[in-house]
């Protein structure tokens, strides 16, 4: 009976996660279009630099235009080969900037560059806007796709009520989540989290409880507009034979700066292992009152705990 319930709740958790699938699929279609455009323009610049020069209002610059052609082809092939990622599109944006600068320079050099130059400038500016939109959209999608997902479970010799009560007070989280410096309650369902980020930089965000089923489940999510993209859900399930509670957790971390997962994975730890270690500390705190350490013990070297302990904890 309880295993059926588990499956049900796991499914619910998965559905929640699926509904937050990353955006960006339309952007990758446009990216492919931009890729072909890039290749086409590049070939034209290579084989007919003079004609292109006339259109742009920039005469006698054949070799420069040919080199722009090579650049266009390289960027275009890059975009086509990796149309799901933003990298080559950002390269295109940089190329657009060079084009705009060149056209601007041509205009400045020749007072009567004329309507053609104006038209070319306008076209390139339009393409640039499309490139920027597409690249930034794909960047966001990429950031969310490469977020860290972690899950784990552990049996705790305490009742679901006790486990739920301890977890529900988010201010307890730093007692077993190592990379959290503090959590401050800011309302019944909201809290402010402070974490140690990469290089010791502190990162703060606000968290909202999305679902709260007493003694069974808590789901939370970082508020929109936070630096960090984070959500989590914990289930408390009666273990058979009065053996306590099976605590199951899933967490996702990411952020818009593409230092993805660094928060979830300090020192490059595997997120699932990290969750397991956190759960183990949760168990220690509930069963014994605190989590055991060797930090600060004596040894015949500089510190009592070593790099090996650092990895293991």
């Amino acid at each position, binding site marked *: 009976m309880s295993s059926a319930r588990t499956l049900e709740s796991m499914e619910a958790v998965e559905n929640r996660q699926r509904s937050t699938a990353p955006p960006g699929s339309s952007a990758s279609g446009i990216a492919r279009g931009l890729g072909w455009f890039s290749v086409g323009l590049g070939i034209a610049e290579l084989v007919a630099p003079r004609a292109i020069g006339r259109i742009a209002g920039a005469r006698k610059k054949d070799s420069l235009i040919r080199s722009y052609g090579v650049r266009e082809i390289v960027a275009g092939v890059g975009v086509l080969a990796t149309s799901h990622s933003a990298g080559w599109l950002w390269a295109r944006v940089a190329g657009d900037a060079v084009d705009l600068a060149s056209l601007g320079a041509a205009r400045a050099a020749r007072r009567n560059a004329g309507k053609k130059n104006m038209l070319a400038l306008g076209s390139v500016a339009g393409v640039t806007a499309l490139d920027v939109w597409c690249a930034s959209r794909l960047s966001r999608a990429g950031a969310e796709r490469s977020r860290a997902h972690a899950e784990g479970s552990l*049996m705790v*010799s305490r009742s679901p009520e006790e486990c739920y009560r301890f977890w529900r007070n988010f201010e307890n989280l730093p007692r077993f989540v190592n990379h959290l410096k503090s959590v401050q309650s800011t309302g019944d369902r909201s809290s402010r989290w402070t974490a140690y980020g990469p290089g010791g930089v502190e990162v703060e965000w606000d968290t909202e409880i999305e679902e709260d089923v007493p003694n069974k489940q808590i789901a939370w999510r970082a508020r929109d507009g936070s630096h960090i993209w984070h959500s989590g859900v914990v289930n408390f399930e009666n273990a058979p034979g009065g*053996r*306590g509670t099976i605590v199951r957790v899933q967490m996702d971390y990411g952020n818009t700066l593409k230092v993805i997962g660094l928060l979830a994975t300090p020192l490059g730890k595997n997120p699932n*292992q990290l969750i*397991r*270690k956190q759960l*183990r500390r949760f*168990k*220690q705190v509930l*069963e*014994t*009152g*605190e*989590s*055991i*350490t*060797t*930090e*600060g*013990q*004596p*040894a*015949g*070297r500089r510190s*009592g*705990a*070593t790099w*090996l*302990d650092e*990895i*293991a*904890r």
Partner: protein
Amino acid sequence: MKANCWQGKRKVSVETVPDPKILNSRDAIVKITSTAICGSDLHLYNGFVPTMQRGDILGHEFMGEVMEVGPGVKNLKPGDRVVVPFPIACGSCFFCERQMTSLCENSNPNAWLAEKAWGHSPSGVFGYSHLLGGFAGGQAEYARVPFADVGPLKIENGFRDEQVLFLSDIFPTGYMAAENCNIQPGDTVAVWGCGPVGLFAIASAFLLGAERVIAIDRFPERLRIAREQCGADTLNYEDADVLASLREITGGRGPDCCIDAAGMESHTPGPLYAYDRAKQALMLESDRPFALREAIMACRNGGTVSVPGVYGGFVDKMPMGSLMNRSITIKTGQTHAHRYMKPLLQRIENGDIDPTFIVTHRMALDQAPEAFDMFLNKQDECVKVVLKPQ
């Protein structure tokens, strides 16, 4: 304070290190009055246990006087005399509630490492690699004892240190090995290895009603102690064919119980030793299981093989066919020392056993490097060394 530190393969040194402090609320600081070198310390010394780090303080058999307790310790006070069990156990997890304290779920902060190596993690242990928690050990002047409200056994009746020191590990270990055999009246028990654990296993087998114990080793002085102090019959495996002799002694049936008190660095005469030693050196197997193989082959149909000897990783050529086809039970485990300390203290009080019979050397803590070397090479008929920090 002074402490004996692991420095690499076959190298230990006594260093001056900071005094230990209370780190968790259920800690105690113990001023050590006696501490021993365990046969299992030789596995560390020889570099066979992974995750040792230069500077680790060794030692898991110690006793002394409580100097300080954390706010969570209510049953001890400064001045109490205690023996400390070698596994660290919280007293309240699934396994502690079932008195399987060497499997405590909350005392190994490096459980993740042990899970990688062994699937699941046992408890933390003093001074026994980072796989088992990386805790500073007790071959020192002072030690920090976590979960001090659960582990340490108070000694209140004026026994000398040596009479009760071995409650920390080897007496319970030998006893659990014998208990795991489920000895029945009339049983013959064979014990491979007459080091301290083997000797306590022999003595315990008799305490638990064995009819006859056959002790197997190659060092005459150890066989002599087994014979004279414990009442065992002895076999020197360098002179005799062990399997044939055991068959002969037991009327062809084989011993009812076989105890492997040798473990991962066991020895055998002849080419098989060279074969396994070479594989071990090439990391093709981590442990040499001669005693274990022989114990399985020797054991009678439906009998029990009990393994107190320490293993770390993988063994080759396990006679699974013999084990399976002949309904043999294997029982093993790090000792749940907490479970045995009080009843065995009672045994000592009753005069059933005097554990001091195994002590051959008493030395100062400063002499730990010489003591390790002597114990490893069995020089001067060394069986057990007790170190005195003060």
